[in-house]
């Protein structure tokens, strides 16, 4: 017996949960990059960066669970639970949902390995944690493609802000890691400078 | 070059190919070099001369006749170097003619291998690689470890000032390999490795040839595998070799687990210096009472010592442990200039003022009591015309370049220490540098994964103590005249150094 609900309530809930997840994942990715870059200031100690990164990731997991649950229970689209974990098996928006499943799988791997970090050892943990750089953009892409709010201005703006924040953090990290490489500095700056108008013009088409 | 019989001194080649600073070249090149810090003095003329001497020694009619040594030699010394061959060191048959076959006697029950460990225990043999750990105890802990063991013979002499291991491996390879085999049998090893620096291609070829001869003759229950390791200073450390054999870089690893618990391929690993194993090969033949016949009760047996600096005949000598250092220097022909201090124990050793050091018996416990350590048996005489600070500064610069790059305090601290010492030696301290050094030393020592930073700080502390008068002079007035003298302590030149770890 399947449980299903009618009405737009679940649809609103899943969009809300999805957007909150996007925000949380963005913040988490941002803080992760800052941790690796040893960001610290007199009022912001390092353990706060890593502590927030950890807690926001766990919170994101909660909201992802909400997002999946509300989507599955929504009778408007018949998406089974397994489609959340196994990519590209749903009938509705197969590609974009598949990306979501990939992001979820990566997120679970990240969280599980981080919780068992001490047992796992540093090298194995680090290998898996690099996939964080894949998890976040895939999640964003899932939001852009599968999200039903993406036509609206505020959703587009939010996505742009999220992408800009993480891209900026990564640029900062790259420049900080290799401060002497002039070519690197110039190419990163050029990318950032060009990227802004490109993204703006693309988003003008209401992806 | 005649060898005085029965004096227990076997004169051998001075180090070649190591940027040896036993140079007689003088002149503007050295003065220019001495006024800026750093750089090794490679001395092609001196090396060519030394090689010529080596050839002469190699072809001299046997200064010691090739006596069969089935029984222990009657004279107290030489022991290790008694059977040194000038003709065909790699000839297995000649080795067996001289010493008799390796006393393995087949595998006749469990208790037989253990008996060698008991004999080694009673003999009081300690490691000759620098640490001086009781060999019997090490063997026992490996033998009682879990599973089959591995034996690693460390012939990778990292110390530029030492060449005793090189001597043993070129002139007595089969004695060393006997030791490896006996140790492997005693601890229940199923694998055995002999490690040397991979740049020593001639030595590798010689050893491979000797190992091959033994393999064909079926002498060893466990065939010896000869491997070349990177030529970095810390690569000859015990855990570095183990990590390298395991496929990793030749860098030291963090302590637990220790190699004797989990080493090569996770098995209990016995790591010994090649000189220790050579002594073991003789103990197995002649017994522990014989071994204890020379030396001190607390430091038994004989040892190989590399004597260098301003002495008449620098080279490797075999001495009884407990011989006063002054006597060791006299065996090497005595000082050619009045010595001000002796560096005992190599670059992780200590400077000791000459008059004080002269009386000290050369052995681990007596040197420890005097605030030093035996190290790998190196004694270098520094004349009054040299500047001990400048020499120390050069060595610390070398040590700073030779860190494994793993531990922050060492990677950051040693170069800072080297800079400060160079400042003090060549520019004068102006009151600041001494303060800097005294603040750096406690921050560096004890905070690395291996003993590299500790060795450097110990050397610096002993230099500040021994050369305290010079330190005051440098601090107040700048460089002394001694910095213009040729560098004495050998530091490998750029062309001899390797930079890789794998």
């Amino acid at each position: 017996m399947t449980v299903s609900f009618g009405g737009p309530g679940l649809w609103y809930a899943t969009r809300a949960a999805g957007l909150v997840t996007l925000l949380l994942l963005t913040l988490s990715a941002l803080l992760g990059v800052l941790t690796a870059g040893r960001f610290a200031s007199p009022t912001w100690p390092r353990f706060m960066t890593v502590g927030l990164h950890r807690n926001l990731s766990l919170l994101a997991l909660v909201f992802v669970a909400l997002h999946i649950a509300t989507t599955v229970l929504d009778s408007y689209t018949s998406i089974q639970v397994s489609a959340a974990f196994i990519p590209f098996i749903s009938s509705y928006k197969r590609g974009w949902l598949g990306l979501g499943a990939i992001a979820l799988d990566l997120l679970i791997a990240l969280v599980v390995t981080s919780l068992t970090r001490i047992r796992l050892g540093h090298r194995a943990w680090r290998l898996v944690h690099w996939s964080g750089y894949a998890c976040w953009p895939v999640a964003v892409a899932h939001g852009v493609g599968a999200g039903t709010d993406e036509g609206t201005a505020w959703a587009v703006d939010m996505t742009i802000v999220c992408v800009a924040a993480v891209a900026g953090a990564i640029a900062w990290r790259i420049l900080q890691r290799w401060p002497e490489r002039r070519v690197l500095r110039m190419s990163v700056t050029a990318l950032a400078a060009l990227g802004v108008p490109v993204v703006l013009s693309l988003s003008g088409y209401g992806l | 070059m005649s060898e005085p019989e029965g004096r227990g001194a076997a004169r051998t080649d001075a180090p070649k190919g190591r940027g040896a600073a036993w140079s007689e070249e003088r002149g503007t090149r050295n003065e220019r070099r001495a006024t800026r810090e750093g750089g090794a003095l490679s001395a092609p003329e001196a090396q060519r001369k030394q090689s010529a001497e080596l050839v002469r020694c190699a072809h001299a009619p046997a200064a010691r006749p090739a006596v069969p040594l089935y029984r222990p030699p009657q004279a107290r010394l030489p022991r290790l170097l008694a059977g040194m061959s000038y003709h065909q060191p790699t000839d297995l048959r000649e080795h067996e003619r001289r010493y008799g076959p390796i006393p393995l006697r087949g595998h006749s029950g469990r208790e037989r291998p253990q008996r060698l460990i008991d004999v080694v225990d009673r003999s009081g043999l300690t490691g000759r690689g620098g640490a001086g750990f009781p060999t019997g105890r090490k063997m026992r802990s490996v033998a009682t470890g879990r599973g089959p063991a591995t034996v690693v013979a460390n012939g990778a002499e990292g110390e530029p000032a030492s060449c005793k291991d090189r001597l043993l491996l070129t002139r007595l390879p089969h004695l060393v390999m006997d030791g490896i085999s006996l140790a492997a049998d005693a601890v229940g090893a199923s694998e055995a490795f002999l490690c040397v620096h991979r740049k020593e291609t001639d030595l590798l070829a010689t050893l491979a040839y000797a190992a091959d001869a033994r393999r064909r003759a079926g002498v060893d229950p466990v065939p010896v595998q000869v491997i070349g390791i990177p030529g970095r200073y810390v690569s000859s450390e015990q855990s570095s070799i183990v990590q390298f054999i395991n496929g990793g870089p030749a860098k030291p690893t963090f302590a637990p687990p220790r190699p004797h618990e989990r080493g090569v391929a996770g098995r209990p690993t016995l790591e010994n210096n090649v000189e220790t194993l050579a002594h073991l090969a003789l103990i197995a033949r002649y017994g522990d009472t014989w071994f204890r016949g020379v030396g001190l009760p607390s430091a038994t047996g004989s040892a190989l010592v590399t004597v260098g600096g301003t002495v008449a005949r620098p080279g490797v000598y075999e001495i009884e442990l407990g011989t006063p250092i002054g006597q060791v220097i006299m065996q090497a022909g005595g000082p050619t200039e009045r010595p001000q201090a002796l560096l005992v124990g190599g670059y992780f050793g200590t400077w000791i003022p000459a008059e004080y050091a002269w009386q000290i018996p050369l052995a681990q416990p007596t040197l420890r009591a005097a605030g030093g350590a035996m190290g790998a048996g190196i004694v270098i005489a520094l004349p009054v015309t040299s500047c001990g600070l400048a020499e120390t500064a050069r060595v610390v610069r070398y040590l700073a370049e030779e860190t494994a790059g793993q531990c922050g305090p060492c990677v950051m601290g040693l170069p800072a220490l080297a800079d400060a010492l160079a400042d003090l030696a060549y520019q004068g301290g102006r009151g600041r540098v001494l303060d800097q050094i005294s603040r750096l030393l406690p921050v560096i020592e004890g905070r690395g994964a291996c003993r590299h930073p500790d060795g450097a700080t110990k050397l610096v502390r002993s230099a500040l103590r021994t050369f305290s008068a010079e330190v005051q002079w440098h601090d107040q007035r700048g460089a002394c005249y001694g910095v213009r003298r040729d560098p004495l302590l050998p530091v490998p030149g750029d062309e001899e150094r390797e930079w890789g770890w794998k």
Partner: protein
Amino acid sequence: MGLEMSIKLRVNPTMCDGHGMCAELLPEIITLDQWGYPILAPGPVPRPLADHAKRAAEACPTLALLIDETRHKHR
């Protein structure tokens, strides 16, 4: 008679990258040298700080801070 646990801290210097989170979380025992690497006060960790020590070890990004727990009987 009961069991008492004493905790000792150790640093694996080959893994330590000088992030410094341990010194922020346990400043009573860990201070940083001029290059950012930890200097541990000698001796066991006092009992009231045990939880903080565990948190500091968990926070280390390279797992370089190690905790040794030994149990011994307490008279």
